[in-house]
C-alpha cells in the first residue's frame, strides 16, 4: 500500500502494466522478437497517457517498474530487436485494465491475459489459453502436460521433497486426457535440479518457474 517505488505516472497503468509484461517475459524464457498486445477497455482508452504502452514493452524486455529506462522502452525494444504491435480488444467481462499479450521468441511463444487491479497489483487470468488465477506475489510454477492420473500427486511430492511449500494451486484442462495447465504458487521457488527432474517427465510439455514480481 506504500509502494511500489516506480516510474510514473500510474500504478495500475504503468507499474501494473510493466509487471504484466514481465510475466510474459519470464514465461517466454528467451529473447522476445515479436509482441502483439491487445488492450481492453480503460487500458485501450487512456493507456497512452499513462505510459501503459511503454510500461508493457519495458516489462517484455525484463525491466522492473522502477527502472529508469522505462520511459525509453520503445527505443530499447528496437535496440533489442523486439517488434511490438498494439491493437484494441474486447475481452468481455474482465477488469477494465486488462491486456492480452502474444509474445514470440526464436523458438518459444507465450500467450498471457492479465489485469492490473490497482496499486501496481496484477492478476493473471490466462496462460497459453488456459484459465489461471495468480498475482505473481509469490514464485509461481507453471506446468503444461498431458492430463493423466497422478500427475498432481507426483508434483506435490516433488515439491515437498524440495522443501517448497504450496500456497495455492489451480488446474485447468481442455478435456479428460487432453492438455492441462497447472499453476502452483509457492512460498519459495523450486530449485533448479527439482525443476529439471519435473521437466524430464513423460507428457510434460512446458515448464516455467515464474519469479515473484511484487515487492509488497
Amino acid at each position, binding site marked *: *500500500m*506504500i*509502494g*511500489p*517505488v*516506480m*516510474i*510514473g*505516472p*500510474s*500504478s*495500475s497503468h*504503468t*507499474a501494473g502494466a510493466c509487471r504484466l509484461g514481465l510475466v510474459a517475459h519470464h514465461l517466454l524464457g528467451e529473447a522476445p522478437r515479436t509482441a502483439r498486445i491487445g488492450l481492453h*477497455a*480503460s487500458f485501450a*482508452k*487512456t*493507456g*497512452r*497517457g*499513462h*505510459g501503459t504502452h511503454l510500461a508493457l514493452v519495458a516489462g517484455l524486455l525484463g525491466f522492473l517498474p*522502477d527502472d*529508469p529506462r*522505462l*520511459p525509453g522502452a520503445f527505443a530499447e525494444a528496437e535496440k533489442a530487436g523486439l517488434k511490438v504491435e498494439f491493437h484494441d480488444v474486447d475481452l468481455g467481462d474482465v*477488469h*477494465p*485494465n486488462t491486456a492480452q499479450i502474444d509474445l514470440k521468441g526464436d523458438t518459444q511463444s507465450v500467450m498471457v491475459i492479465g489485469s492490473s*487491479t*490497482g*496499486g*501496481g497489483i496484477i492478476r493473471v487470468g490466462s496462460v497459453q489459453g488456459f484459465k489461471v488465477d495468480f498475482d505473481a506475489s509469490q514464485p509461481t510454477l507453471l506446468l503444461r502436460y498431458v492430463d493423466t492420473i497422478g500427475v498432481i500427486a507426483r508434483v506435490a511430492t516433488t515439491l515437498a521433497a524440495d522443501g517448497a511449500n504450496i500456497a495455492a494451486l489451480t488446474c485447468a484442462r481442455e478435456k479428460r486426457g487432453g492438455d492441462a495447465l497447472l499453476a502452483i504458487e509457492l512460498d519459495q521457488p523450486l530449485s533448479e535440479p527439482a525443476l529439471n527432474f519435473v521437466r524430464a517427465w513423460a507428457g510434460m510439455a512446458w515448464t516455467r518457474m515464474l519469479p515473484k514480481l511484487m515487492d*509488497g
Partner: protein
Amino acid sequence: MLTLTDLMNAPAPASGWVLAQDCEETGLDPADIRAEMARRIGEMRDSIERGLSSDAKSITGMVGWNAKGLWDAPDALNAPLIRRVQAYAMAVNEENARMGRIVAAPTAGSAGTIPGALLGVADHLGIPDERLVDPMILAAGVGKAISKRMFISGAAGGCQAEIGSSAAMAAAAVTELLGGSPRACIHAASLALMNTIGLVCDPVGGYVEVPCVSRNAFFAVHAVSAAQLALAQLESFIPPDEVVGAMAQVGRMMPAQLRETAEGGLAQTPTGLAVTACMEGRQPDEGGGMIELPMA
C-alpha cells in the same frame, strides 16, 4: 480479515498491531519491514526535492511548474503548514507526471497525498524521518483494510477510491505521529473518507495530470484537517467500516464514464477535448491549427 474496526480496537500504537500482522503474514522480521519502509520514506523525500526544484513540463505540458511555483511564491495566507503540505504533494505528483521515480501510495495518481501530509507536518514541526516509519506502517494498514472491500483504482471506484484512500491513510498516519490513540487514528481516516465519497475520476486526456496534481495538494490538506478533528476527539458519526462500505457502494454505482475513461467531467470540457486532440496529433474539432495549451 483486517478491518478498520480491528485497527481501531487494537492496543496502542495502532501501527504496532499492523506490523505484527505483517510479520505473521510475510514471515519477515519487524526490523526488515521497518528498514524497507524507511527506504521508501527516503524515496518520497527524493521525489519531493526533485519536484520542488524542477519546473520541467510533464508529458502533455499541462503541469510541471506548480510545486515550484507555490514553493517560490510568497506565503500570502501566512499559513506555512498549508503551503508546505500543498507544495510537497504537488512536487511528488509532478515528478510522477514527468515519468519520474515516485512511491505509489497507494497508487501513483495519489502518490503526493501521504508524503504531502505526513512529511509536510513533520517538517513543519521539526520531527525527524525516523519517527515517520511507524505512522507510515499504519497508513499501509489502513490502505489494506480499505482494499479488502474495494479495488483501489480510479478505473474501478472513481477518484474517491484512490485519493479518498490516500487521504484516509494520511489522516491516520498524521494522527498517530501527533500522539493520537488507535481510535482517533481510525476516526481521522473515516472522517477523511466520508468527505471524499462521490469524487469522480475524470483526468483530461486520460493523463494523470489534471485534476490529479492539484487534487493531491487539496487532499493532503484534507487529511491534515481530518487529523486535526480527530486529535480533538471528534469522531466520524458513521462507523469507519460502514463508511468504507458506503464508498464501495458509490463506486459500484458510478458510471464507467466517470471512472478513468476520460469520457466525462473535466476530460470532456472543450479545453479537455482540445488537449486530447492535440496529444493524439489530431486537429481539435474547432478552430484551426494545433492549439496552444491554455496553461502552458
